[in-house]
């Protein structure tokens, strides 16, 4: 990362404001060891107000379509009292921006947004102070608006830039500046249009995959047939005869670089490689669930509490309570491995250079964790961190799938071999085969309830899918909630919402099943067992908008699911029609309503866009997305074989924003995906009597066992 001193050298006149702890800057003469969360908390944010009034904001967060380039700038505009058009956001550049852990976990709004509001508010106070000095008056008598300080009494005004003209002012601020109350927001809280939208509709925005460098070659990597294979024979001789082609091999890595994409593809096809697959046996997608349960638990690995970091959650005596419950229901739920399918595949452009201090590596790449990828590159090539620069252009989406730097490392290897800049863009097939997946999992639920609808016992065992949102938010006196890590035959990792989607699916489906056993209305049953008022409010608001309580048309069903995760409260209601198609019964979501509460809304239009998008993506995982595999090899590695939601899958969607101005602002990128699957499953059950317990529910129509009970 850049030290404060190096950072300041970039600027001439103007005001530089840094929000950091003093401890860190006490020792900035040498590089701090980056990569610790401790440091992430210390270095907050920095911004520069130039002599011409332009504001440049530096943040390690990255824009992947979620809209933070706009919403974070709105928060700066709000507190600094400057027009949006004067703000430039510099994002995700390890040489320019403060260290950041990464853009994930719906943290940009609660953490970075708050930091930027604080540094902006402090900068505004500093500018007012400068004006007060100049005018020999008190700061309290002055106001700030439109990039100027105003003296209401005398009518004098002065532009921010003029206050610093010819001087360079550097101020460190603590994070105690007073923030504007959301009820008085004028820029934040409004639907400012996406700032870079014109670049997107004209095709002018340069994604990583669009970058051109002088002399640049296009790279391709030689891939095995199965993950974890060893390269034991390699012959790149014929590939190397193509004009301008470079072939390289280093251990199990081999690749080609060529002047254009088609030549690279043909050169790759001319490479002869023999691989030794990993030792078996490995399960295939049909027996994965038994495998995941049989390979658990790793010793001492059972977790669940403290957000998944601590041991299992235990309250009361769940075994006694289960035995004593008036009704008891035991069920098993499963979720498949699914792929992120970001429309821009993993991509990187790597360029080596030399200066007096030796090799320097610059990599442009679409990653959600630029500093982690910088460290990955530094380690791969034995470089000091400051000899690697990672730059993240606004990227063609990620959904949690672009946390790692494998594509960046591959591009840098090819560039080093070719002695030229190399661009590597993974093919769609490579994305499906060599990226990581949302984990598959099995979730067993054993619950006890009294006939009056009071939940008394809850045993919840998640195998492999993960501990996110594993704790029930229903009031249940006796609980044992456990996450059991397993061996996974496929590479797995982060995904929008992590395991919270799977845990909400199992939990909310089980709640729907319990309501059916009790012959209680599923909403009334929930409200009887939820005390949190914000959670009650989203269920009630969504129910009202949806028209809960009416009877669904013949062949249709209604259902709901909701919860709380990453600071967001959500309730989703769905109407599903089940229709015969190609000899099977095919569910189609025709209507969906989500009520969402993540505190005060920064940008209502952007928030609606995120929520609707998450709901639509959630339909894919709920109904038809799944990775097929056999002995470590993916069998449906093409879009023609891996179905994603398309126009015809989209229901009528309504969103209710709770806009709680009295609460902290939280993120929204993940939680709204989580209510779809349980709501759709419940609606299918009401329409057909079939209770889906596996995600996806209907890859080839509905095929689950039929139960006799009516739902409500």
């Amino acid at each position: 990362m850049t030290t404060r001193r190096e950072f300041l050298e970039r600027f001439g006149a103007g005001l530089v404001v840094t929000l950091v702890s003093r401890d860190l800057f006490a020792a900035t003469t040498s590089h701090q060891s980056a990569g610790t969360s401790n440091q992430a908390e210390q270095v907050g944010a920095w911004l520069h107000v130039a002599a011409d009034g332009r504001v440049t904001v530096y943040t390690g967060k990255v824009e992947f379509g979620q809209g933070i380039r706009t919403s974070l700038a709105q928060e700066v505009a709000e507190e600094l009292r400057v027009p949006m058009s004067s703000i430039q956001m510099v994002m995700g550049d390890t040489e320019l921006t403060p260290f950041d852990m990464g853009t994930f976990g719906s943290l940009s709004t609660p953490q970075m947004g708050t930091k930027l509001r604080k540094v902006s508010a402090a900068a505004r106070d500093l500018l007012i102070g400068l004006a007060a000095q100049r005018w020999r008056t008190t700061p309290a008598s002055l106001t700030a608006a439109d990039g100027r300080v105003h003296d209401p009494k005398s009518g004098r005004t002065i532009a921010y830039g003029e206050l610093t003209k010819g001087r360079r002012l550097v101020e460190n601020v603590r994070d105690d500046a007073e923030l504007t109350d959301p009820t008085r927001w004028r820029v934040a809280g409004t639907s400012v249009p996406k700032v870079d939208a014109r670049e997107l509709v004209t095709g002018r925005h340069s994604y990583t995959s669009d970058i051109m460098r002088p002399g640049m070659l296009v790279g391709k990597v030689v891939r095995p047939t199965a993950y974890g294979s060893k390269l034991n024979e390699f012959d790149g001789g014929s590939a190397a005869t193509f004009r301008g082609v470079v072939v390289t091999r280093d251990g199990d890595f081999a690749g080609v670089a060529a002047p254009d994409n088609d030549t690279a593809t043909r050169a790759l096809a001319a490479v002869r490689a023999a691989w030794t697959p990993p030792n078996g046996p490995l399960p295939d997608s049909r027996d994965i669930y038994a495998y995941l349960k049989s390979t658990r638990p790793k010793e001492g690995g059972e977790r669940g509490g403290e957000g998944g970091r601590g041991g299992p959650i235990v309250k009361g005596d769940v075994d006694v309570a289960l035995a004593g419950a008036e009704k008891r229901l035991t069920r098993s739920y499963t979720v498949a491995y699914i792929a992120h399918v970001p429309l821009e595949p993993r991509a990187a452009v790597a360029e080596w250079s030399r200066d007096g201090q030796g090799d320097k590596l610059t990599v442009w790449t679409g990653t959600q964790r630029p500093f982690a990828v910088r460290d990955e590159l530094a380690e791969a090539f034995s470089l000091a961190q400051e000899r690697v620069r990672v730059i993240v252009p606004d990227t063609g989406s990620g959904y949690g799938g672009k946390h790692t730097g494998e594509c960046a490392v591959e591009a840098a290897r090819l560039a080093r071999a070719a002695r030229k800049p190399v661009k590597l863009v993974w093919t769609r097939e490579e994305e499906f085969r060599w990226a990581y997946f949302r984990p598959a999992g099995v979730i067993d639920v054993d619950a006890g309830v009294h006939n009056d609808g009071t939940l008394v016992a809850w045993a919840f065992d998640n195998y492999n899918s993960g501990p996110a949102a594993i704790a029930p938010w229903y009031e249940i006196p006796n609980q044992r909630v456990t996450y059991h890590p397993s061996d996974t035959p496929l590479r797995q990792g982060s995904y929008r919402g992590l395991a919270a989607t799977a845990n909400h699916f199992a939990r909310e489906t089980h709640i729907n099943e319990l309501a059916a056993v009790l012959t209680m209305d599923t909403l009334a049953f929930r409200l009887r067992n939820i005390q949190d008022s914000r959670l009650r409010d989203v269920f009630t608001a969504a129910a009202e908008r949806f028209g809960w309580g009416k009877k669904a048309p013949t062949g249709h069903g209604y259902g709901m699911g909701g919860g709380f995760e990453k600071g967001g409260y959500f309730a989703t209601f769905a109407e599903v029609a089940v229709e015969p198609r190609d000899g099977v019964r095919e569910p189609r979501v025709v209507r969906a309503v989500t009520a969402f509460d993540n505190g005060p809304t920064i940008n209502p239009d952007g928030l609606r866009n995120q929520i609707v998008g998450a709901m639509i993506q959630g339909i894919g995982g709920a109904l038809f997305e799944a990775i097929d595999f056999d002995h470590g090899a993916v069998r449906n590695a093409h879009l023609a074989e891996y179905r994603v939601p398309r126009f015809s899958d989209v229901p009528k969607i309504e969103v209710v924003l709770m806009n709680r101005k009295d609460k902290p602002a939280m993120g929204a990128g993940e939680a709204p995906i989580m209510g779809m699957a349980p709501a759709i499953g419940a609606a299918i059950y009401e329409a057909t009597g079939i209770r889906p317990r596996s995600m996806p529910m209907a890859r080839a129509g509905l095929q689950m066992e039929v139960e006799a009970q009516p739902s409500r």
Partner: protein
Amino acid sequence: MRIELDVNGHRHHLDIEPSRTLLSVLRDELALTGTKYGCGEGQCGACTVLLGEHALRACSTPVSAAAGHPIITIEGLEHGGRLHPVQQAFLDEGAMQCGYCTPGMIMATVSLLRANPSPTEQQIIAGMQGNVCRCGTYPRIVAAVQRAASGRTASTKARQ
């Protein structure tokens, strides 16, 4: 082999393999990177360009098949700083998130509206079914197509 391409009203004489994809030639040779690679197999629509009046998947079209026909890419829609009405409609509806599918969506819309200037919602869905927006911006894209079809150009959407 010499190939002559007519792209956005400009003639290009290229010495290239005729079997190369139109997508690679547009992006790597002509630096027209607004046309995107999404799947390479004609399944996602990110590489959509116009060949004459018709939408075409540049990723699975050999450049030789495109020679001699006027090709329009996303870069060719804007004239003198004025956005094409379909571009403006996408802007007005905020019909994007990451924007990677947007050029292909816009080209597909231009083609759709040339064939059918006032499509029903069902016709829009059927006509755009081959284009994927993984961010799930579909409802806004439908609204943008409808806006472009209606000829509304001013930014009149009531944003909440």
